[in-house]
């Protein structure tokens, strides 16, 4: 067992809320998001997701819970054998939706994040920022109840970062709770939002 990365932390993410999760590199932001995403189990402590104790959630229920959570991984995790369009449409496809029913939505969202002319390109030839935007689009496409975004603006220029932030705010207005993990102070200064600061394993919440 290594050292405890997170301890004595307690917080609640209300429905439709907007918050930044910040802290220096290695503070445990990604770890905390993985805990919320149920892809990591805490060695001790209680986590409740959508009103349900995580230990009471059956493996078979996980996909249905994950469908309510949009996640942007720090390392994107796009599928290299699918085009940008197909990657973004993947959450809809695995839900069994007909392609005709979502094609326009996907194209529109991709245009919004500035990938309108990169629809049919495979991820290996996308730039870092383009991959990041594709990953964000994939997390948003189903209008999740909560969005967990890990450094979503880490690879884009400030103008585009602002544009993406506006996208998150818009999403939040339509009812999605948003958690953005970042160490970009400039980005956080642009909106009045709750800040959850991680440092040395502890969490301070500034409302």
């Amino acid at each position, binding site marked *: 067992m290594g050292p405890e990365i997170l301890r004595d932390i307690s917080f609640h993410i209300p429905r439709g809320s907007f918050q930044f999760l910040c802290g220096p590199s290695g503070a445990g932001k990604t770890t905390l998001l993985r805990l919320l995403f149920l892809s990591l*189990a805490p060695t001790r402590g209680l986590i409740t997701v959508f009103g349900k104790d995580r230990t009471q959630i059956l*493996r*078979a229920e996980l996909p249905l819970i994950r*469908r309510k959570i949009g996640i942007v991984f720090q390392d994107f995790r*796009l*599928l290299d054998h699918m*085009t940008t369009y197909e990657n973004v449409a993947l959450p809809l496809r695995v839900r069994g939706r007909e392609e005709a029913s979502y*094609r326009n939505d996907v194209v529109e969202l991709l245009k919004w994040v500035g990938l309108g002319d990169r629809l049919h390109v495979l991820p290996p030839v996308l730039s870092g920022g383009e991959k990041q935007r594709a990953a964000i689009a*994939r997390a948003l496409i*189903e209008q999740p109840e909560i969005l967990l975004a890990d450094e979503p603006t880490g690879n884009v220029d400030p103008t585009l970062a602002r544009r993406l932030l506006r996208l998150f705010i818009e999403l939040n207005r339509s009812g999605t709770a948003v958690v953005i993990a970042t160490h970009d102070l400039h980005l956080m200064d642009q909106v009045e939002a709750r800040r959850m600061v991680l440092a040395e394993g502890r969490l301070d919440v500034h409302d």
Partner: protein
Amino acid sequence: MSTTDQTPAVQRTGSGAKTWRRPASIVPQRSVAGHALVIVIAIMTFLSCLTLGAVTLVRDTASVWQTQIAREATIQIKPGDGIDMNAALAQAQAIAAGFGGVRSATIIDSAATARLLEPWLGAGLNIEELPVPRLVIVTIDERAPPDFAAMRQALQASVPNVSLDDHRNWVDRLISMAHTTVMIGIAILILMLAATVMTVVFATRGAMAGNGPVIEVLHFVGAESQFIAAEFRRHFLWIGLKGAAAGSLAAIIVFVVFAWWSSRNLATPQADQATALFGNFVIGTTGYVGVLFIMALVAGLTAATTHFTVVSRLNGIDIGRTDHD
């Protein structure tokens, strides 16, 4: 799969016309590991089918040997003082022919006997002057063989210096040899199938290894385990079918070519030797049914291995989760 390749739906998106390709399959298609897997499966299927063919061939041949040898018995009369050999032969022939289950009893005449002995004694011998045992060949209906013990008793009662050889010892030894051969063949077949099973399992797992991240992403975007497993199963069942079909087809071609070769060369000396040993290289129905069975086994195994690899990978993603199901 629809054939959108031929009839691409075209959508105009700002900058210009874009061609929509058929959606990429969920499982990455072109991978080196996939090609290697097809080849490994084809080779192992081919070898298993050949082994199976050889075993059925040996088994069929062994049963042919048994019935052919059991078709004959030999009465032998040794010359002795004051024995009228011709009379004794005729009497033995008459006694043997009188038994039920005997098709015919033929005396090997002196000319034929001399021919039989020629290689050892040279030509131009007067066989009548030598004390050579003489034979009566009894042909038997192998489905209802005669009572050899009674025949032996009847012969010994009226013919001097007679003995009856029903080839029982020879047949018994041949049967046990044939059984041993078939058992060895089956053992080799079992080993071969076990090797095939393991090779297919490991090769499939190898080919699946690169798909871990794909499985994870599918899981994270909310795909149900059954959906993911079905996608991979379908893809790998296809790979398994391709490889297994290629291997079995090659094996069947080998069978057919052998059968053709042996029937074409039926009259030549080499073929006679081969035919004497193996019958005529014809793989029976069992062989072909077996080939189909092996093909289904290998393809099914590929799909099953894929399924379990996907499931165990999915179970491994959410590390540390306590399992309730």
